[in-house]
């Protein structure tokens, strides 16, 4: 008998049938992948399992006993843990406070037993082989470490069922391996796990079985060993997706420089030099925390710097704010869609048009709602946002569809330079290839793109040139056939001395050799 069984679960939100009679069975000691396009209903199914949403019909069984989770707490008490798709930690609190939030051990006076909490947290980290100081505040942690804290939190109740909703999205390959090591250990301990990811190779590496959903309906459950990525994608999308990367075009003319930036971050000694050619896709590769996103923010004037000299189309420009950058035609798609990208109470249309409203002005300077809506809907079709309508509040969309909304904002903005920070985070395989194609269309129009990505295939498959970041600096420039995953990783992980300025000067020498 399966440890966890979801039987014919259905759920409808206003205007959306999210799930229709979906079943899922997970054994003890099994890692079960849940696969489906953006908006297929994966997160919704897991939220029902965790008592956050109530199903319209259907049953949850644990050890064959029907459960009625009317709240998240109830589900936790019954041994269900979840790592949410969106982070749920409180940044200002310490790691241990986060883990025990809402159920702190107390003494006879009702005061929190800090020592006890710390002891339990340390034991937990030891068991999971996580090396994080439990007393540090969460906002000091890297994204990856935050993810591990989430996992520790989910497991702190001795969860027998653990749900991981896109846990690898913000992680680099090394960190993914660390996560997998923990998952294997939990599997050996008999935990039943549901694993959601848009990365096929991860599913083949770690999962035992896979259940595919499409448009809220159950499609199939397969043994991972008996299938392959192509077959899975076909079941998930309903058609074959052969080549997800667009065909390689000859690299654009190098001499046609659009943007040149000399940027020295606050507190750093070395100035980084970035050149961007017309119609080029320039990749920023490196580990999480290697300074790529900071550089992106600095390039639009949103991050304090010690020095910033920029030339756009041969003219010197001074950028004091993202608005200055936008005026000059430089736009940024930020890394964190919830905090930096979306205006959550806004509708899809309002989110998309926010940075080019003047396009819909009538002669009187008022916004033409009709024109605005039509333009937004055209863009939503282009990136295939799955939503009941353009007037749907963006916060109710699935994670991947939210990401598509933020991308859509930039497609018709008329920028010369677009900086895309992790543009395909949380986006399904089919939609990914369309976004790549869109990027190629943009470059064909002469727009230059900087793409930050932690997914090496994306970097190697798409970029004309790559800058590798390491400890806050550009340490290598690769072009053409030199853009190889192995080479990138070598540079990204190479030891560089931070205190030694010659160590920082060394990359410059390297730059010349590579280009």
């Amino acid at each position: 008998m399966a440890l966890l069984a979801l039987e014919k679960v259905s759920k409808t939100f206003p205007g959306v049938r999210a799930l229709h009679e979906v079943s899922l069975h997970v054994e003890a000691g099994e890692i079960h992948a849940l696969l489906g396009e953006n908006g297929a209903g994966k997160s919704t199914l897991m939220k029902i399992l965790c008592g956050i949403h109530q199903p319209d019909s259907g049953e949850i069984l644990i050890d064959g006993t029907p459960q009625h989770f009317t709240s998240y707490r109830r589900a936790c008490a019954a041994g269900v843990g979840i790592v949410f798709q969106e982070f749920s930690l409180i940044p200002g609190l310490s790691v241990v406070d986060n883990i025990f939030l809402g159920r702190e051990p107390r003494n006879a006076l009702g005061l929190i037993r800090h020592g006890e909490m710390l002891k339990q947290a340390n034991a937990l980290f030891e068991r999971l082989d996580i090396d994080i100081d439990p007393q540090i505040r969460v906002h000091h942690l890297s994204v990856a470490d935050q993810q591990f804290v989430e996992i520790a939190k989910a497991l702190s109740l001795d969860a027998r069922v653990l749900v991981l909703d896109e846990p690898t999205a913000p992680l680099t390959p090394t960190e993914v391996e660390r996560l997998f090591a923990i998952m294997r250990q939990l599997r050996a301990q008999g935990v039943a796990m549901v694993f959601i990811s848009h990365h096929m190779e991860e599913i083949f590496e770690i999962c035992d079985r896979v259940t595919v959903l499409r448009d809220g309906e159950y499609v199939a459950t397969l043994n991972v060993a008996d299938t392959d990525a192509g077959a899975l994608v076909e079941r998930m999308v309903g058609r074959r997706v052969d080549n997800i990367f667009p065909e390689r075009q000859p690299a654009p003319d190098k001499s046609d420089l659009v943007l040149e930036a000399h940027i020295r971050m606050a507190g750093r000694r070395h100035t980084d030099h970035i050149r961007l050619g017309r119609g080029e896709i320039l990749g920023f590769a490196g580990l999480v925390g290697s300074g790529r996103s900071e550089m992106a923010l600095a390039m639009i004037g949103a991050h304090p710097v010690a020095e910033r000299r920029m030339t756009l189309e041969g003219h010197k420009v001074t950028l004091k704010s993202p608005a200055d950058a936008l005026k000059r035609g430089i736009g940024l798609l930020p890394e964190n869609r919830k905090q930096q990208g979306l205006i959550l109470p806004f509708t899809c249309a309002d989110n998309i048009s926010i940075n080019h409203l003047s396009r819909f002005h009538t002669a009187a300077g008022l916004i033409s709602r009709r024109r605005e809506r039509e333009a937004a809907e055209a863009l939503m079709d282009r990136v295939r946002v799955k939503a009941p309508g353009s007037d749907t509040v963006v916060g109710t969309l699935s994670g991947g569809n939210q990401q598509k909304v933020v991308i859509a904002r930039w497609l018709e903005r008329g920028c010369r330079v677009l900086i895309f920070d992790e543009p395909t985070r949380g986006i399904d395989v089919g939609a990914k290839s369309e976004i790549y194609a869109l990027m190629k269309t943009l470059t064909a129009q002469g727009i230059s793109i900087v793409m930050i990505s932690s997914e090496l295939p994306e970097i190697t498959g798409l970029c004309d040139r790559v800058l590798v970041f390491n400890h806050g600096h550009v340490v290598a420039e690769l072009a053409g056939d030199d853009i190889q995953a192995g080479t990138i990783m070598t540079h990204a992980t190479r030891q560089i001395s931070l205190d030694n300025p010659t160590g920082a000067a060394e990359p410059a020498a390297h730059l010349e050799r590579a280009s």
Partner: protein
Amino acid sequence: MTTPSSTSAINPKPRRQRRSRASRLLHSPVFFPLVGFIAVFIVMALVNDNFLLPNNLTNVARQGAIIGIIAVGMSFAIFTGGIDLSVGPVMALSGTLMAGLMAAGWPPTVAVIVGLLLGMTFGAFNGACVAFARMPPIIVTLATMGIARGLGLIYTGGYPISGLPAGFAFFGRGEVMGIQVPILIMLLVYLVAYIVLHHTSFGRYVYAIGGNEEATRLTGIRVPRYKLLVYTISGLTAAIAGLVITSRLMSGQPNAGTGFELDAIAAVVLGGAAIAGGRGAILGTLVGAMLLAILNNGLNLMGVSPYLQDVVKGGIILLAIYIGRGRSA
């Protein structure tokens, strides 16, 4: 602009259904405040025989106009996720300045313009502190609330300024086509605010800043500039209220408007706005302000003691917000 997607043949376009008229009304942020207003209205009409008299109703609207006008600026501030506590004293200060100038023989038009400019300047100062010096609005306006009140008292020496030209009574006591001028001014202010908030880019930015300031900034909107504008507007509407109240009383009262900031906040929140910003409707604020006005009037007619009135009003505000919480989408 519509590049046909190569896959649309295989993957049918997602449905684009628009909400029905009834569902839109139900989800409109104004719906719930309106229900509350009607409920209180009916109760008051049942309890007091005089409540429904046309004379009384115009009275209610006129009395509500002052808070109603102030609440417009407050709405702008709250929609951006901010707040403006200085509105009451700014109202009094602008009003006394207008009175003082007229008493000194300035022509009313000039005096009014200078008074309105003073309100805007005060608001702009609030805005500059919030937007450029990045100080929290609640602290900034708490401080300027004291400053404005103090300046008003210094300017007048603590005494009301009277002896205003008779023509000036028009703004507070006049009538145009049978409608009281304060009500007309209020409706005009709401009309302009409605157009600005719902049909201009600036209005959209107001909500965007309240919804997610960081995202709004990163997408290339000049957030500080618009915040400055928001607090300037709040100063202006406070000064307009100052004009109306000074004209109504025909004297500049340095102590007018004590506690008005709280009534204005209550009006905005009763109107369905999220105090954290990003959500709310200006017409909701109008309904909220009128709801407060009929409450005041009804309780007065019932002869409820002023002390008890405060208790009842506070209780009803809590109740209304409890029922309406999370309702506005």
